[in-house]
Each structure stands twice: as C-alpha cells, then as structure tokens.
C-alpha cells in the first residue's frame, strides 16, 4: 500500500513538474541564446536552422513563423525598464534610437500575438512613418488615449507586448551587447486611466 501511494505520488509530482515547466518555458519565451538589451529580448538563432529546442517547440505550439536571420531580427518587450508588465490602461513611452537597419517596424500585440483593435486602427509604426526629433531619435507614446506625436493606441487592454523588428540589419547571432545594438528605453509615465 505504501509502495502504491509512493509511486502515485512520484508520478503525480513528475507530471506536475514536467508539464508545468514545459508550459512555463514555452509561454515565457525561456530558452537558450537569449539576447537581452534593456527590456528587449531577442533570439537571433531562432531564425536559423540552429534554432534551440525550446524555440522550436514554442513555434510549433503557437504557429508563428520566426524572422530568418537573412531577413532581419525581432525583439520583444513584455515589461518596462523597471520590470513592470506592460499595461494597456497606462501610459508608456518608448524613446531613443535603434541599431542600424534599412527598415524597422514596431508593433503592439496581445500576449497571444494578436493585433489589438482600437479607434485609430493603428497597430504599429514603420521606421518611415515615425515623426522624429532633429537628432534622429524618436518617441512613441503607447497609451489608451490620444497623445501628441507618435501615438500607438493600446485599446485599453490589460496586457500587451511590443515587437521591434529590424530588417536588413547587422544585428544578429553575433550581437552581444547594447554597444552594438542601442535599443530604445521603455518607461512608464505612471499615468493610468
């Protein structure tokens, strides 16, 4: 009897730990060769045949097609620079400069990778659309209500993530640090509606 209970306990624990950790790893983009710059993270190797098993399982599960390294590289931000999750009911400012690329796009998705509906029908910007400062830097207001300048509406969703994709860029598998890839800051202004 004790053997039976012990065995069941072991199997239940194994299933909980094994499946729980798999689910966590696939939904939190954990994995190898993550490139982290500020609140932006990328997995350049996921765009090659050397994709790691976690990224491979994650794309099999959600159906996404990763950006190939010969095409570009994709960065995701789920939190602001202070580590707080991005909240669509609050104002967040993305500002600064980006690594050199022929084009880049910034897009707002819900955590499952769907675009978010809003009154302006705007889900992102291309590098060509952004209004810039004289020094070439830019500032994007990610906010539920209209803002002057580059306003990216959140549609008031509770959680969202930002994806910054660089096309035709030197950022890639060999990139290691911020010096090589200056990424914009992600700051909460503290104003919430």
């Amino acid at each position, binding site marked *: 009897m*004790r053997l039976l209970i012990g065995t069941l306990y072991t199997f239940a624990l194994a299933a909980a730990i094994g499946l729980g950790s*798999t689910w966590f790893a696939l939904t939190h983009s954990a994995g190898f060769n993550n490139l982290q710059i500020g609140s932006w993270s990328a997995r350049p190797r996921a765009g090659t045949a050397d994709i790691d098993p976690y990224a491979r*399982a994650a794309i099999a599960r959600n159906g*996404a097609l990763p950006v190939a390294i*010969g095409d570009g590289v994709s960065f995701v931000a789920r939190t602001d620079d202070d580590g707080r999750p991005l909240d669509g009911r609050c104002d967040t400012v993305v500002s600064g400069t980006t690594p050199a690329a022929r084009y880049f796009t910034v897009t707002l998705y819900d955590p499952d990778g769907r675009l978010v509906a809003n009154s302006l029908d705007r889900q992102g910007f291309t590098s060509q659309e952004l209004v810039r400062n004289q020094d070439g830097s830019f500032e994007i207001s990610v906010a539920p209500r209209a803002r002057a300048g580059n306003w990216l509406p959140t549609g008031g969703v509770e959680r969202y993530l930002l994806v910054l994709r660089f096309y035709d860029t030197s950022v890639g598998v060999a990139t290691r640090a911020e010096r090589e890839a200056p990424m914009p800051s992600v700051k909460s202004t503290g104003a919430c509606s």
Partner: protein
Amino acid sequence: MRWILWTLAGILLGGIVHLATVLALPRTATQDAYARLAPMTPVNAVTPLPSPTPGNAVLPFMDPAFAVAICRYDLSSGPIKLTAPVSQAYTSVTFYTRRGVAYYGINDRAAGRRSIELDLMTTAQHDAMPEEADVTAADRLIIESPSTTGLIVLRALSPEPGLMPMAQAALAAARCQAAQ
C-alpha cells in the same frame, strides 16, 4: 526519509517528462504554421495571405506592415523554381521546413537584382544534378531543403499604409512552380 526519496524520484522523473515533451512537441503539434496554412494554400503555387487584422490573422505575430504571400512546396516530384520581383521598399524570401524552422532567408539587397530567383531542391536532388549543369548555372542560386515539404514566405514591406497595394502587386507577380 522514504518521502524524501519519493520526492527526489518525482523531481528526476519530472525533468525527463519536461525534456521529452519539449522535444516531442514539434512532431505532435497540430496547429503549427504549415497546418494552419495547408487548407488555404495550393501546393507549389504562390498564394497571397490576407493582411492580419485584430479580429482575424492566419498566423500569430505577423507584421502588419508587410504584404505576405506563401508558396507551400512539395519537392517529391522534383525541384521547384521561385521568381519574386522586388518591390520598391524591401522584399524578402524566407524558407521554412515543414516544422517551421527558418533554414534560409534572403532579401532584395543580398539577391542584388530586380528579382529574386532561386531553385529549391532536396539534397538528394542536388546530388543527382549533372555536374556541368551546376557550372553553367553559375548565377542560379540553389537552395537545399532539409525537408520534402515546407513553406516559402515572400514578404514585401509597405513603408506607409498607402503603399500596401504596391507591395501586394509586387508579390502578385511572384511565381513558384515545378522546374522542368
């Protein structure tokens, strides 16, 4: 003491379950990109994908600034030839295996011409090519596919919303067909 041993066994077994599920998932997934695209894309032909909208997107995390077209390929009856004219802004072609692994990507600048022209074949088909054909075809770019089936994704950037028709028109002229 006995319970500590059972717990240790459970943690060890949990690690094995974790590794096994991560490695097995790509083979058992029923909703990967290829499976989602299969009902709406004929084999060895270029099909434009509708732009993603908040209510409707074929695949998650699609870049809404791009016009996208898909060639779902099957090399079992021979190599295929891909021709994609480049758009004014930025055009790229990415090759994915049946499991969604991006094994090759090229953009218009790397292709260096007015159109991107590629031959796609399996390693066996490449090996079977007569040697002189390889030489005479020096300016043909040959890509080897690790899997017999897979996806070619053509992307053309629309730098501003008004240019989307131009990006779509560039992809509409793309061809993907069996090489003779």
